[in-house]
């Protein structure tokens, strides 16, 4: 199981976002994609999930079950959905023909909530959660489908330091069981946890954590 990207190019209208990207995501690793804002990190993630089609090149995904954790800022906080209902939507494809969730899925949703430490808040509105809690609820939604790969888009961007530690602890618990691919612009807290880094600035450069320049961790990107 892996993701193989070969000679990929992507442009919005005539604005080239990604150019000549070739990379491989080996199974079971913790991979971090970092880079400046507007560098193409989220676009690369969306190309991997098939939400966007490349202008050139190929994306081969050998995973059947993909879990995706988007940024919490894209959600409507007024939307009427409880935390439990939100987690269940992660298994919407398992709905019966008459539209209800099987008991086994409801049980899995409870387990996923317990895993991320949100069992007590299952009946609360998703919009009432703090940034860190909302992010963990989204991780629980991704986990209910028992993914082989978990893709996270800036999971610590809108959370406080304590929540950031909790999210990283959760990801460390999952490390080894599934492939984790995390997009971030803040490299410092994750440097000692990642197996492989990719710096995305229109082009993509692979790096081992030990080779990452201190400037990158400070957000100063260079070749």
């Amino acid at each position, binding site marked *: 199981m892996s993701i193989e990207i070969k000679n990929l190019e992507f442009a919005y209208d005539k604005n080239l976002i990604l150019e000549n990207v070739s990379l491989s995501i080996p199974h079971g690793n913790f991979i971090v994609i970092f880079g400046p804002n507007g560098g193409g990190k989220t676009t690369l993630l969306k190309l991997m999930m098939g939400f966007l089609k490349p202008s050139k090149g190929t994306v081969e995904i050998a995973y059947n079950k993909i879990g995706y954790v988007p940024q919490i800022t894209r*959600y409507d906080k007024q939307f*009427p959905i*409880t935390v439990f209902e*939100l987690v269940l*939507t992660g298994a919407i494809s398992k709905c019966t023909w008459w*539209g209800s969730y099987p008991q086994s899925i409801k049980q899995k949703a409870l387990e996923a909530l317990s895993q991320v430490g949100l069992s007590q808040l299952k009946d609360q509105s998703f919009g009432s959660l703090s940034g860190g809690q909302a992010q963990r609820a989204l991780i629980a939604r991704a986990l209910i489908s028992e993914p082989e790969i978990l893709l996270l888009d800036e999971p610590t961007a809108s959370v406080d330091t304590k929540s950031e530690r909790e999210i990283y602890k959760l990801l460390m618990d999952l490390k080894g069981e599934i492939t984790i691919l995390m997009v971030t612009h803040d490299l410092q807290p994750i440097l000692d946890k990642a197996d492989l880094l990719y710096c995305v600035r229109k082009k993509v450069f692979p790096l081992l954590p030990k080779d990452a320049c201190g400037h990158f961790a400070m957000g100063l990107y260079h070749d």
Partner: protein
Amino acid sequence: MAILAGASASITAGIMGSYVVAKRIVFISGSISHSVLGGMGLFLWLKRTYGISWMSPLNGALLFALISAFLIGWVHLKHKEREDTIIAALWSTGMSLGIIFIALTPGYNVELMHFLFGNILWISKSDIFLILGLDLIVLICAFFFHNRFLAICFDEEQARLQNVKVTWYYFLLLALIAVSVVLLIQVVGAILVIAMLAIPAAIAGRFQNRMPHIMGLAILLGIIFTVIGTSGSWYLNWPPGATIALTAAIFYSLSFYKKIPK
């Protein structure tokens, strides 16, 4: 008869209105409800000019509502960057067609005025059967597809990732909204449909945080507004559609006075 029609339409409005408000597609519903004027005008013109009896304004409204829903769905899925402009263009195109056909149609168009501004007291027995039939379709679809609609309304990408046929369900949702619009035209008229579709669900959403609860409360509020509005219009000799919509608007304003914690 009027109260029965109002209650039936309130059921559909409460259910579909809750999706409309939650997904923030009130503007889309507005476009559908105003573009039906084109269908009503066209069918009335064909009926009066060529004597085609089945071409009633209501059937024209249903046809144009479904066409508008399909076009809006296509724009939303394929041309998202210009969605609001295209929806507005569809809104005004439908109304323009309607106004032109009204001008071309011979005779005094009192029938069309009822459809434009609503007259719940004018509803016939056959209209009631049509309303109940459409009500049943909406209820069955909402019962079987609620979890899928909820997932798609909240996060289309996530549903797509799980191989859910998002396009199909999105079109179905818009088609059901179109059907609801046609039902509500009977009660408040095409111009005021948006009030009955959005306001009961918007009020309910201020006090409830689960979709089924919002739907239940929105249905109840829709019935209350219809009863108060219809009775009020009787005593005050005001147009019933406008009185119902005004009642809903007054209750909506009052709902801001105090918010019950969810």
